[in-house]
């Protein structure tokens, strides 16, 4: 371990592995370490033994719901937009060759006590019970406007400057009812709460376009998902990094992040007796004091809210959903008197994440009260009998500085959104901070052939 590296990466979560892969492809000498003996950190998918070790260390995993290795349970429920920033990254780096993707079979939204399919085509929309006849006409006008809108073509703006006008004014112009607004803002633009209505409308319009494009790509839902769980993604990017010369060390405890006493700049990391030096370090918040600050340690991360997630093992599909093998249900906050939406993500053995006949639903939301688990009740109520349930409350951490000054670059925790676009945003953000330039995905990476 005596060599000097361009970059040390701490933690093998998805964000870190993507960055490690991109840096290695860029010719940087990378050392990637993880304190665990497995890849993925928070974004690892767990088998039953690992799940029990984490949630019920004193109990043994059940043997009557299939084999241990049939399970790959995500801790952070997220899907991939069929057409979005994550798919761009996957295709650009060619890690798609290490992975196999399945389509998520349905996207649903909760309204007035019932679960409704989010229309995937215009025909479905016109048959959907989500809107009345006149409202359908108004909504149609709105969607035509969105589809035609081009930032650089004022003729498509209809007098609205979307960079300034808040979204609520756009809704008002098209006369959309609150229920339709809920549907558009939460089930399509995937906002977790209603603050977006006060913000300039452009972002919302772009999100709707992304949703529609993703929906159109494969047909049934806007999402795809990797076989054997999300934990395959960090592994695939770690292979990319290794193929380009990155060095991997799992099961390596990081005892200290060393800085220059005078300048505060990063020097290296210490693991036991060994010290490795590098120009910079990138790592997840848990390597920089998140959760357990040591005395005298510099404050590098802060908590900004919490997410509660319940992994639920079911022995049946979710009632009222045409028994699909995988889906998302969004419960918009307004529907259940909350400030933040509740999400349900369902997977089954078709995605290689559990035994045949078993379904895994993860219910999650942003914590608003002191009894987080109770906040999930409206979501849990939709699942039917729950065979077993594992609940976790996770603080979300964010770095206190950009890291440019001390060359210590910290990534963000995985948030409550239902997709990986915020992870991609974080990757781009860290890349910009590290290299001083925006991440360009122009040239396609092609693996070296010997």
């Amino acid at each position, binding site marked *: 371990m005596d060599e000097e590296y361009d970059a040390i990466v701490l933690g093998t979560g998805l964000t870190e592995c993507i960055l490690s892969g991109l840096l290695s492809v860029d010719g940087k000498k990378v050392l990637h370490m993880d304190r665990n003996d497995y890849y993925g950190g928070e974004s690892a998918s767990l088998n039953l033994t690992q799940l029990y070790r984490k949630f019920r260390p004193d109990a043994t995993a059940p043997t009557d719901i299939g084999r241990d290795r049939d399970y790959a349970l995500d801790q952070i429920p997220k899907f991939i937009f069929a057409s979005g920033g994550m798919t761009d990254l996957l295709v650009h780096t060619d890690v798609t060759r290490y992975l196999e993707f399945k389509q998520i*079979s349905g996207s649903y939204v909760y309204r007035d006590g019932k679960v409704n399919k989010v229309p995937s*085509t215009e025909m479905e929309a016109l048959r959907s019970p989500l809107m009345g006849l006149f409202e359908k006409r108004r909504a149609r006008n709105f969607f035509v406007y969105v589809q035609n809108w081009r930032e650089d073509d004022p003729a498509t703006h209809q007098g609205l400057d979307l960079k300034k006008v808040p979204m609520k004014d756009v809704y008002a112009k098209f006369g959309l009812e609150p229920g339709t607004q809920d549907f558009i803002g939460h089930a399509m633009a995937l906002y977790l709460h209603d603050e977006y209505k006060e913000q300039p409308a452009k972002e919302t319009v772009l999100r709707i376009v992304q949703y529609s494009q993703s929906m159109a*790509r*494969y047909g049934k839902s806007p999402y795809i998902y990797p*076989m054997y769980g999300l934990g395959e993604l960090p592994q695939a990017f770690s*292979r990319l990094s290794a193929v380009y010369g990155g060095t991997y060390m799992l*099961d390596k405890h990081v005892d200290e992040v060393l800085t220059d006493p005078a300048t505060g700049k990063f020097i290296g990391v210490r693991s036991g007796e060994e010290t490795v030096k590098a120009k910079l370090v990138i790592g997840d918040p848990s390597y920089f004091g998140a959760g357990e600050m040591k005395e005298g340690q510099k404050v590098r991360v802060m908590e900004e809210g919490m997410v509660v997630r319940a992994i639920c093992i079911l022995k049946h599909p979710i009632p009222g959903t045409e028994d699909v093998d995988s889906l998302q249900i969004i419960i918009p906050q307004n529907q259940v008197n909350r400030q933040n939406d509740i999400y349900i993500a369902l997977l089954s053995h078709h995605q290689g994440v559990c035994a045949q006949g078993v379904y895994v639903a993860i219910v999650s939301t942003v914590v608003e009260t002191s009894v987080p688990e109770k906040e999930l009740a409206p979501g849990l109520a939709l699942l039917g009998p729950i065979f077993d349930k594992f609940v976790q409350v996770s603080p979300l951490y964010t770095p206190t500085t950009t890291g440019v000054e001390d060359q210590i670059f910290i990534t963000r925790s995985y948030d409550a959104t239902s997709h990986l676009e915020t992870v991609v945003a974080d990757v781009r953000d860290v890349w910009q901070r590290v290299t001083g330039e925006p991440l360009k995905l122009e040239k396609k990476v092609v693996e070296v052939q*010997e």
Partner: protein
Amino acid sequence: MSKQFQFKLVLLGESAVGKSSLVLRFVKDQFDDYRESTIGAAFLTQTVQLEDGTTVKFEIWDTAGQERYKSLAPMYYRSAACAICVYDITQSASLEKAKSWIRELQRQADPSIVIALCGNKSDLAARRQVSQEEAQKFAEEEGLMWCETSAKTGEGVNEIFDRIAHKLPEVAPLQAQRGTAAAKPAGARSVDLNKGPAGPGTPESCNC
């Protein structure tokens, strides 16, 4: 029409036993006395034609050096249809390492994975530390294929890939049934991200 199969094959074994050399001999019929330890592993393919016209295409994965600090990602062998666990006949410790990979595969990989135990560097028989009997006995007990090879002379190399190529189509239906990625049944519902977007109403794959 003759059948075509494509299988993922992974190589496992201690550093310097000759994994990359075996691949190079099989794919390009070359050998290099001064090979450097693998970083930046190649991803190679090679096709074997069987007597009945069936073609078996191997997608060959090398470890990219990730196993060096016990850090090989399980994804590497998870959806593999076959694995060659290589040891060096002049290093008895390398057989122990190969055995531990075999145990790992038996625990984590698809149960129908075809595993070959391969004693490489047979041209160095004068320095032999692992007897043929010992290795063969272990392979028989565990239900594995076994062979000795020399990537240097080429002895036994094509034979082992050939034997695997013959065995795989027999177990392919089993793997396809389990949904092993390596043996995708035709019309599986996987999506190909490298294909352009399908228009609305023309889903790329269907549920039927």
